[in-house]
């Protein structure tokens, strides 16, 4: 049984690494970069909408959110959660489960990550107005690590469900 576990573990790691590398490779191509920029724009629009609803006077210029005091923050490159989304997709696709479960995990997981990313963006927008040093800390290190941790927990929850359903269904056939 331990051998079977090791085999499954190794298979998972290899497929995960392969998909991760291929997906980041695709992300760096021009068409994907264009879509990436569109995603950033859409997320900033949503964040601006949330802030406006809460009574903020922040203004938006493309993917830049500007405070009345002049502080501005732009969403670009990895700031739109694309890196952690790729991480989650690679893990879900590499895990042995039914395709329907994988599809549910990919869609639901991506939506949760993007919701968290909007919270992150808004919190950074306010933190930056308070201290640029702590903005740098939260932007580059804390929030990025928290998002990877959240991604791991989303994957973990998905595995709980996928394993339970898959094993019972396979055994019952």
């Amino acid at each position, binding site marked *: *049984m331990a051998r*079977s*576990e090791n085999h*499954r*573990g190794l298979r*998972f790691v290899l497929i995960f690494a392969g998909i991760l*590398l291929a997906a*980041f*490779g695709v992300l*760096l191509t021009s068409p994907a970069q264009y879509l990436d920029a569109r995603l950033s724009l859409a997320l900033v629009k949503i964040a601006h909408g949330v802030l406006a609803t809460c009574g903020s006077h922040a203004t938006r210029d493309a993917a830049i959110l500007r405070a009345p005091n002049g502080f501005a923050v732009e969403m670009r490159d*990895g700031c739109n959660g694309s*890196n952690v989304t790729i*991480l989650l997709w690679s893990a879900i696709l590499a*895990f*042995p489960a*039914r395709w329907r479960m994988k599809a549910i995990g990919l869609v639901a997981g991506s939506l949760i990550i993007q919701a968290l990313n909007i919270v992150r963006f808004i919190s950074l927008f306010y933190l930056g107005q308070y201290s640029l040093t702590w903005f*740098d*800390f939260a932007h*580059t*290190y*804390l929030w*990025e*690590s*928290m998002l*990877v*941790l*959240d991604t*791991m*927990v989303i*994957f*973990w*929850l998905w*595995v*709980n469900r996928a*394993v*339970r*359903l*898959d*094993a*019972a*269904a*396979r*055994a*019952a056939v």
Partner: protein
Amino acid sequence: MPPPVPRFKPTTRFLISGSALLIGILALWWVALRGPMLDLLRDAAGVFLQVKENPSGEWTVRAPLEKLLPPTAQRPVAREIHFVNFEMPRSDATRFIFSLPVYWAIILASPGAKRKLRSLLIGTAVMAALEVALLLAFVDLTAYDAISRIQGDPGFQWGRRLGLYMVPNVLPYVLPFGVALSLHRQLREQVLQFAKETNVQAFCAGLPADRINRGPLAKVRRGRS
């Protein structure tokens, strides 16, 4: 009588304690450990290449690289290159030292007290080695990229771009989680559940079909369809 302590699911417990530990340990690292850890990284990297710190705090890195640049229309004489010098802002170098506190936070949030200490000690050594390796890989990739730009060589440009993106922007964030899952068996078993899956299958395989089609297993089956 004190109120009963709420019992959380392992995922909830890991999320709450992991987030709290990440905030605490990373804040401590940012305030107190960043400087000494950068010095240690510079000294460790100094074993393999020349690294000098400028008064402004920036690093000047000399990457050894033997290369013969063939003559071109703009430069008729061939040129031998032995090393590449480049400036590295302190903030870029900092990206290669924050994986360690992230690793500590993950392990401390993981279940099991005994395995924690073992994983903490072995993992710290592994993460420290990986951080130095990532910095060296980044320096190498940057040096090769600079030479290729001088040569005007577009060959393998995509691979270089991928490497220069992955090494500072993806791997420092992913590796602490990967190392934690590799070294901490209990965490790995809880997250990936390969053992559980095998056990459930073995258990179900030994049951007659009518037992599987009744009770909780049938409920699970019905939920799927």
